[in-house]
């Protein structure tokens, strides 16, 4: 499958090494409309191709990607300028099961860059709330200046969501919590029946366990497992986890399916 050319139309720097770029189709072709949680394979000419979650969508086929610089290809995407052309194919992978939150309280837990694949889900959840059931959003980061999309939290709150933030370190001016997301999940006002979780893998493991301790069922906890992927279309096997090919069966999977597969052999 060949990548479709997309032109960079917006570029917003978020913290020291993260950038959110907006892309629109450069020609007549476009990728399908991504559902919250799905990803695109993003191609940079002469550099490489990597999976990136869709963090926003808009008019005229706009897709937004929030990218952290970690290696060659992500560096090239972060460094792209308005007007540059990248390639995209997809959307691939499973989506957050938004309807599962209907009639239930939902806890969305996002750590670090993990808020990117959850942003569309949070938007969809706050847009759908027509009953007393609540959307609780817990966002964790290393420091306050590394919280992504901080200017949208007030809008989510105004739409009825409870949004709490926690960081590993801050000074006294900080108005959120200092500590971990797992510690916050012990709070009674943050209890839910369903959870969407995305962040570094260790953080997701700890969060899932903390949610289980609150009595949440394993099949109601959904995580996004972003292991290295290559083809995106369940051919190459790079992202195999036990019986799952994460580019097809994930990245969003329920905890009951993956918990037994998460053990890491010691060395």
């Amino acid at each position: 499958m060949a990548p479709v050319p997309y032109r960079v139309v917006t570029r917003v720097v978020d913290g020291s090494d993260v950038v959110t770029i907006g892309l629109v189709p450069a020609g007549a072709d476009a990728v399908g409309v991504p559902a919250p949680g799905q990803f695109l394979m993003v191609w940079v000419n002469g550099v490489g191709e990597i999976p990136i979650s869709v963090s926003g969508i808009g008019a005229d086929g706009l897709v937004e990607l929030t990218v952290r610089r970690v290696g060659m290809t992500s560096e090239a995407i972060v460094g792209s300028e308005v007007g540059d052309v990248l390639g995209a194919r997809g959307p691939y992978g499973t989506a957050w099961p938004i309807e599962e939150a209907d009639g239930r309280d939902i806890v969305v837990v996002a750590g670090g860059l993990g808020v990117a694949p959850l942003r569309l889900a949070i938007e969809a959840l706050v847009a759908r709330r027509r009953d007393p059931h609540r959307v609780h959003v817990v966002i964790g980061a290393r420091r306050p200046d590394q919280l992504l999309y901080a200017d949208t939290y007030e809008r989510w709150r105004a739409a009825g969501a409870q949004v709490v933030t926690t960081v590993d370190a801050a000074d006294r001016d900080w108005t959120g919590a200092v500590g971990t997301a797992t510690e916050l999940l012990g709070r009674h006002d943050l209890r839910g029946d369903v959870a969407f979780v995305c962040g570094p893998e260790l953080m997701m493991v700890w969060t899932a366990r903390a949610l289980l301790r609150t009595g949440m069922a394993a099949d109601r906890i959904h995580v996004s497992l972003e292991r290295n992927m290559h083809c995106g279309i369940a051919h190459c096997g790079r992202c195999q986890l036990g019986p799952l090919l994460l580019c097809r069966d994930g990245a969003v999977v329920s905890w009951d399916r993956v918990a037994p597969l998460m053990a890491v052999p010691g060395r």
Partner: protein
Amino acid sequence: MTTDATRDRIEQALATHPFSAGLAEAHLRRLASIAHEESYPAGAWILRSDAPADRFHLVTAGRAAVEVLAAGREPTLIATVHPGQVIGWSWATPPYRVHFDVVALDPVATVAVDATELRAACDDDHELGFHVMRRLAAVLAARLESTRHQLVDVYGPAR
């Protein structure tokens, strides 16, 4: 002097605070009899490191910060404490002196249990003592887990 109305309010606060909710009625009454209400303006010290650990605070409003202060370096904010949580465990183990500084970040309200009386109550009613210590152990386990998670620096660069 504690009025009946204040006593009722304290009993009510203890009955609903996550630390003490679910304790037997008699135990709640015993705790209420050795507790009083305290409030701290933003910026006030709630506990000072190395002072006698004479109170156990159940936070009912406002946020507080646990800090480490040392000459020649900026204060390090280790954790925040929120309504529904507790401040202080140094009251439970000898030599009963406070380990960390705790400052009110907002106006903070607590139900403060007298620590000397609480230790005596736990000693002479082991049933009460067991439930208080079991709950305190859960608080400590959660704090220890959280501190260990912070040590791992999960949001830092992959190694």
